[in-house]
């Protein structure tokens, strides 16, 4: 039976879709059979990040409403052969997802895949509930700013209330991913550090992703940054994926290049 990982956040735009894509690729590269599922109904964009937008014929709503078979809607990735993608519908109606249909779909996927990585919409309305109610694990994405951390805290607080696992007395594994860390700002005291955020949210850390311009260019061309062996954010996503698989890896030490030591080094190099 596969594991359902829901990628969520309170605030929008903090990196859920980016994380979903990179974790899905990272897990597939580690040899797992993975499906990335876009549950951000009406606002699909995981397809673009994965570079699969041109191959969409059917979507998850078509599957749930019986307009096609699951196998017809699943898109296989070219680069990672263990990776599949199930697109979101672009109908504007977010209530298009019916809980019982979602359950049927996810139960079938669980039989066929090791990991089901779900990209969820921002906020805590019905779309969130559909994304979280069957989750085994949740990755809560937060950026180090007050509104993102505040909203992350609210989401963490309601995950168990929405989860079936929690109702059965089991626990949804919850981890935080801190995204868009800017080391130079942390060093000058103008951005909360990873420790600051952890101290407030009090759930375990599973990933720290630096701010990286390469993420934007990677999204432009539809090749998740995790494929880029030379990028720091790519390495951060590779480690995040391997931690999900249970490896105990150190967190990247993120330091500004403009620190004093950097300047001195720069003079002698």
């Amino acid at each position: 039976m596969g594991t359902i990982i829901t990628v969520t956040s309170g605030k929008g735009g903090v990196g859920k879709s980016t994380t979903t894509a990179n974790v899905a690729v990272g897990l597939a590269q580690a040899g797992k059979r993975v499906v990335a599922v876009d549950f951000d109904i009406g606002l699909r964009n995981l397809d673009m990040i994965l570079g699969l937008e041109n191959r969409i014929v059917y979507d998850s709503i078509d599957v749930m409403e019986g307009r096609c078979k699951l196998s017809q809607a699943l898109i296989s990735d070219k680069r990672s052969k263990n990776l599949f993608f199930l697109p979101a519908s672009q109908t504007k109606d977010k209530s298009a997802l019916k809980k019982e249909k979602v359950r049927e779909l996810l139960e079938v996927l669980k039989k066929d895949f090791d990991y089901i990585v779900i990209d969820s919409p921002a906020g805590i309305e019905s779309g969130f509930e559909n994304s979280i109610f069957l989750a085994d694990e949740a990755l809560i994405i937060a950026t180090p700013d007050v509104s993102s951390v505040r909203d992350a805290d609210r989401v963490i607080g309601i995950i168990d209330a929405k989860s079936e696992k929690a109702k059965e007395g089991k626990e949804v594994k919850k981890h935080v991913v801190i995204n868009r860390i800017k080391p130079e700002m942390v060093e000058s005291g103008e951005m909360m550090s990873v420790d600051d955020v952890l101290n407030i949210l009090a759930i375990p850390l599973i990933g720290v992703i630096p701010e990286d311009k390469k993420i934007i260019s990677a999204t432009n061309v539809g090749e998740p940054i995790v494929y880029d062996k030379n990028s720091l954010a790519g390495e951060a996503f590779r480690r995040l994926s391997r931690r999900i698989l249970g490896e105990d890896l150190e967190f990247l030490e993120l330091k500004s290049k403009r620190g004093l030591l950097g300047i001195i080094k720069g003079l002698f190099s």
Partner: protein
Amino acid sequence: MSLFEALFGRKKKSAEAAKDRLKIMLAHERVHALPYIDDLKKDIIEVVKKYAEVNDIKIKTEKNQDIDFLEVEIVLNSPSKD
């Protein structure tokens, strides 16, 4: 604290302000997210009413997600005001 900071005082860095503001804000929000908080308040008021007039009850927490600490402040109707 450096001598400079000691002599001239230190301007609070914005990250520190962020931390402080979040802590205060979340101490309130987490309590309000508890499903039983309204019932708990009503029950406390009922009990205290047996002994004194209650004006208001404020409940907050210092703790994180797994709340294990509630601070209850019971504001009594002071008789002198009547």
